[in-house]
């Protein structure tokens, strides 16, 4: 088993050029935006003189290539620089925001699996039946609803109407966090469901028609045992990559949810940083997201390897 995970270090090395490419693009793209952080910081009193004075104080008057080299140099020491707006290390900012976004994504993924797996199974066992139609209707509806709208509806229903959940915020303790994250995660989870259900449903239908399921049935395996042992595991393989790709997108999607639910995550941090031209923060968040996508890619392959013994990404000869 373990020897099949030997591809991981190689993958990590491969991601280094990706990361350097990302730094170049992010660094220079952010600076293509008109206006600089000094303008944003000085508010209505900004004058040409004060913008120039503050830009100098912030080191923004140096040549761009020099600023890039300073940024790269610091990066190799694990230092992402200091937020221009908050005068706080970007790593510290990230350390506060990452747990929020990651737990939101994790909980959303969990909730969407809890909803999707039974629904997909329900739909796949009798394709074209009434249940299948119902589930397919739900996926259509899910895809059609904008995230922010669904979020507001859930708040109205479960937080203002029933008052079972808070209206936005993040709370103080770990228990609080879970409680405050539930509604936003549910919103995000529901919007993830359609893709997962569709992929799972169609692969389940294929698996159910396959010969080995027929064999399993003939050996007397039915119901839950058949589903767990033979159907789900095999049907899950294509869905894993669908989820992997979607998680990358979701970091971006969580931005809307974070705004509606007032969560202090990466999305809100990124939006503020862009508006105030806080270059180091923009760079820090983007680098983290790039890193996250790479890691999710690797994790997807790991899960793949575990689910399907035939997959061996570590050896070319055996592949």
């Amino acid at each position, binding site marked *: 088993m373990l020897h099949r995970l030997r591809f991981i270090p190689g993958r990590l090395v491969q991601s280094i050029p990706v990361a350097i490419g990302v730094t170049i693009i992010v660094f220079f793209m952010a600076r293509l935006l008109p206006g600089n952080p000094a303008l944003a910081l000085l508010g209505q009193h900004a*004058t040409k003189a004060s913008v120039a004075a503050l830009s100098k104080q912030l080191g923004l008057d140096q040549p761009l290539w020099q600023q890039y080299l300073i940024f790269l140099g610091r990066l190799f020491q694990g230092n992402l620089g200091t937020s221009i707006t908050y005068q706080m290390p970007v790593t510290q900012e990230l350390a506060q925001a990452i747990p929020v976004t990651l737990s939101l994504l994790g909980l959303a993924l969990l909730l969407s699996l809890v909803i999707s797996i039974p629904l997909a199974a329900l739909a796949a066992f009798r394709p074209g039946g009434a249940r299948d139609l119902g589930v397919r209707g739900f996926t259509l509806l899910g895809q059609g609803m904008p995230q922010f709208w669904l979020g507001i509806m859930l708040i109205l229903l479960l937080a203002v109407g029933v008052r079972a959940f808070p209206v936005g915020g993040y709370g103080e303790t770990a228990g609080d966090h879970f409680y405050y994250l539930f509604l936003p995660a549910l919103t995000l989870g529901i919007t993830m469901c359609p893709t997962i259900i569709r992929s799972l449903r169609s692969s389940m239908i294929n698996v159910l028609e396959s010969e080995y399921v027929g064999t399993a049935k003939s050996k007397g395996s039915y119901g839950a045992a058949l589903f767990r042992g033979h159907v789900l595991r095999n049907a899950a393989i294509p869905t894993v990559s669908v989820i992997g790709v979607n998680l990358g997108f979701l970091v971006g999607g969580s931005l809307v949810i974070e705004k509606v639910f007032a969560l202090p995550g990466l999305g*809100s941090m990124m939006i503020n940083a862009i508006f105030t031209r806080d270059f180091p923060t923009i760079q820090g968040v983007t680098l983290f997201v790039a890193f996250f996508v790479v890691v999710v890619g690797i994790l997807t392959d790991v899960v793949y390897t575990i689910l399907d013994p035939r997959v061996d990404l570590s050896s070319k000869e055996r592949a």
Partner: protein
Amino acid sequence: MKRRIGMVVAVAAAAALVLGGCSTANSSSASSASGKPVEGGNLVIARSQDIISMNATDTFDNNSLRVMEQIMEPLFMVSNNGKTLKPWLATGYTISKNQLVYTINLRKGVKFSNGKTMTASDVKFSIDQDTKSGAAGWGFINAAIKEVSVVNASTVQITVSHPWGPLIADLSLFSNGIIPDNYGGKTEAAFYQAPVGTGPFVWDYWKKGQAVKLTKNPNYWQKGLPYLSSVTWTVVPDANTRKLQVQGNQIDIDDTPDWSTFASLKATPGVNAMTFPSTLMDWIAFNENRAPFNDVHIRTAISDAIDRNAMVKAVLFGNGTPAYSMLSPGTPYYDPNAGGDTYNVAKAKAAMAASSKPNGFTTTLLIQSGDANQASIAQIMQSELKVIGINMKIEQLDPTANKQARLAGNFDMSWNQWSMDIPDPDEWTSWAVNPKGGSNSAFTGYDNPKVIAINAEAAAETNPTKRAALYDQVQTITSQDAFIAYLFYSPYSYVATDQVKGFYVTPLGNYQLANVYKTK
């Protein structure tokens, strides 16, 4: 700048109601503080943005200022109507005959929240630090100050380099708030991580992107205050979410709901939708460095073509008043008869006929992207200018890029907004009419030597009656020149649950939380 009446809360509320009632606000103006104040409780205020920094000398962000004003206090405090000043950490001052030396007596027995007594050397240090922030901070406010010197423990002397009317108003600015000498032995950066002042509340914590919290200063120099045990400002970017939170009692105050939210909350039981007269004015800058805006007829024509009442109705849902002066009603020396252009299509057409472009022209209005208010202002102007033969296009840029374009003079016309930080018109007039004031006359390039001279004279004058006459002239001439088109004055909007009592916002936007309490 802070505002508080140090006596009984009921007095403050009565004053607030009387003064607040002077203006347009027809909803409940201030949450009245009748009955016996209740001790304790945590007040939660939700805002769209987080704080940035607690360093008053170089922070321009209102969200940060409102928090630091509860911690650090100035020598003089602006009163409820936003026009006069009252002694605060100072007890009074005298001016020398030549108008150059101010001798200021300090209040005795005032302690910082770290237990040390405030003395003249703390005052000197605080004002000097603000002056040193120079162009990158609020230092320009202290530009007239030549020297601050310690006379004895409870007296300081401020020498100005030339007679300077706004000095006491300048000292009331938050950037001149009093902090311990030499940052109490800390570095500047370390000090502002957890600032110390003489104010009613002390620093507790800041969870970035989430909340900042202050707790009660038990040794506050005004005995019996504050009532609340703590205040938390939370970050809730979405206006709809803030609205639902205040309805669901999860927060106490929704800071700056948008006007559509405000309208719907007005009718909701259990919440109190409040407006407070402000110094906010929306205006359109004409770029006089670009033809045809160097032609006063063109500027007048555009200004005459704007139906300000329609804008107040459409943009502010009726919560505001049309503007006819470069000063707002909440600013000292405001002249209600400044003669700004009113909506008059016939007059606008006549001005166009007399102008350099009698057959009309095509131009652009620059606004900020993502702002619904500005978008509707632009659309209204677009259709109104069409009537007088001007084809106006709308250009949208995000706030920072927009500011860059205005500073660089890269626009024909642009939307702008101003509000005052000190109770003295000079902060705005010198910025707006003097091409050397840093903004090239409010981005317009307007250069009328007569106005510049009168404005300078007004700033050097210390007699209020004479100043009033001079500022009347400034307002009249600028209106005749139509150097900008005044649109409207809008109030500050807040929505609170009906448990919140004693909350009041001055025309400068400050609020004092020492007098606020929550009923059970």
